[in-house]
């Protein structure tokens, strides 16, 4: 991945609305932003819309960023918010019936990042969003609950549910 982390000088140029600097920042960070949006939404069109909206906001609001070293984390937060807004209708958090959970058997397989990515994108939208925010992006359950408009307990149960589904999906994918 050809990723050049933006420095303070580049950020200053972006703040002064220099188009070349904006493009440079876009090129160096677009994969991070798009991958996050795509993984949350599992929809290319929606993810592209989120990508566009995110960069427009980044270029307009960058002067409000106090710590330049927090740029990527700040951009990720904007992306998460935009993605949640774009996929709000898709997210459903059904009551989880424990009797329907898959048996917690011994996991006896090897998998890599590619397979995990496939499995994540096959999760139900609600569970996928919670898993992405908490387990992948490191948001707390409280923050996740606030972002998605759910309770903290729902966030925790959705993560457990997502992990069990992932285990099954990965095993299924390995058998194919």
């Amino acid at each position, binding site marked *: 991945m050809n990723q050049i982390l933006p420095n303070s000088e580049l950020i200053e140029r972006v703040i002064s609305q220099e188009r070349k600097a904006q493009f440079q920042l876009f090129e160096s960070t677009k994969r991070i932003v798009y991958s996050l949006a795509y993984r949350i939404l599992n929809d290319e069109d929606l993810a592209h819309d989120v990508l566009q909206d995110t960069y427009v906001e980044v270029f307009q609001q960058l002067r409000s960023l106090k710590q330049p070293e927090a740029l990527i984390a700040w951009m990720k937060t904007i992306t998460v918010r935009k993605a949640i807004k774009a996929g709000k209708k898709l997210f459903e958090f059904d009551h989880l019936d424990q009797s329907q959970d898959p048996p917690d058997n011994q996991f006896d397989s090897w998998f890599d*990042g590619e397979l*995990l*990515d496939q499995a994540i994108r096959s999760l139900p939208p609600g569970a996928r969003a919670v898993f992405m925010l908490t387990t*992948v992006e490191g948001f707390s359950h409280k923050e996740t609950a606030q972002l998605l408009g759910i309770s903290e307990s729902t966030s925790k149960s959705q993560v457990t549910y997502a992990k069990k589904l992932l285990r099954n999906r990965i095993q299924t994918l390995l058998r194919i």
Partner: protein
Amino acid sequence: MKSLPEHKPRENSWEKIMEKKDFDFQLNENLKKLPVHVPSDLVWERIEKELESQRRIFPWKAFSIAASFVAFLLLALYLSKQDARMEDPPKSISQVTSENLLLENTNDQFTKSDSLASIPLDSQNLELQKKGNRIMKRMPESLPVISSRPSISMNNQAIVKGLDLGSRENHSINPADREETYHSVAISWGLNRKKILMKTNFGVQDPAVLISTTNEKSELQARIKLKRKKQ
């Protein structure tokens, strides 16, 4: 190569391998190795268009804010001028409306002191009530400047009535009516403000003298005669 010695791994090596096969362990490890998805190359063009359109909107926003501010200032200026016009200091001479005159003329009796007392001060926001409960708001007024002439002592109350202009021509001073004097009061009213709104010439016995001293006939709109009431 065959002579090289063999090394024995640790006893717990298999357990270590199995630990790495654990789902949660693999999950945490592979989350760091998730593949990167590449967006379409067309996205930057869309972003540029969006930025350009926002840049075009912004000057209009600034202009509309400035225009509304200027409009607000003009409105405030206009309103303050209106207020200043309403609060203009009253002229030195009372402004009397036709309704006031009518009311005063219908008074059967009044004395000089009564008439002065009936003139409201500036601080009083007096409302005069007319027949039919119609309320008229008077403009702020001030006491008129009283002539330096010695005040007329009127023992009795005076009668106010319209001046019979026809009789003025043939007027002759009756020795019996020595005490009788004529007073000319010029009052003007209307939308156009005059410098002198009320003018009085008083204290003469011959009404012809009153005519000769009046050079504002065109502005004169009413005359009244004050006559001492005979005992």
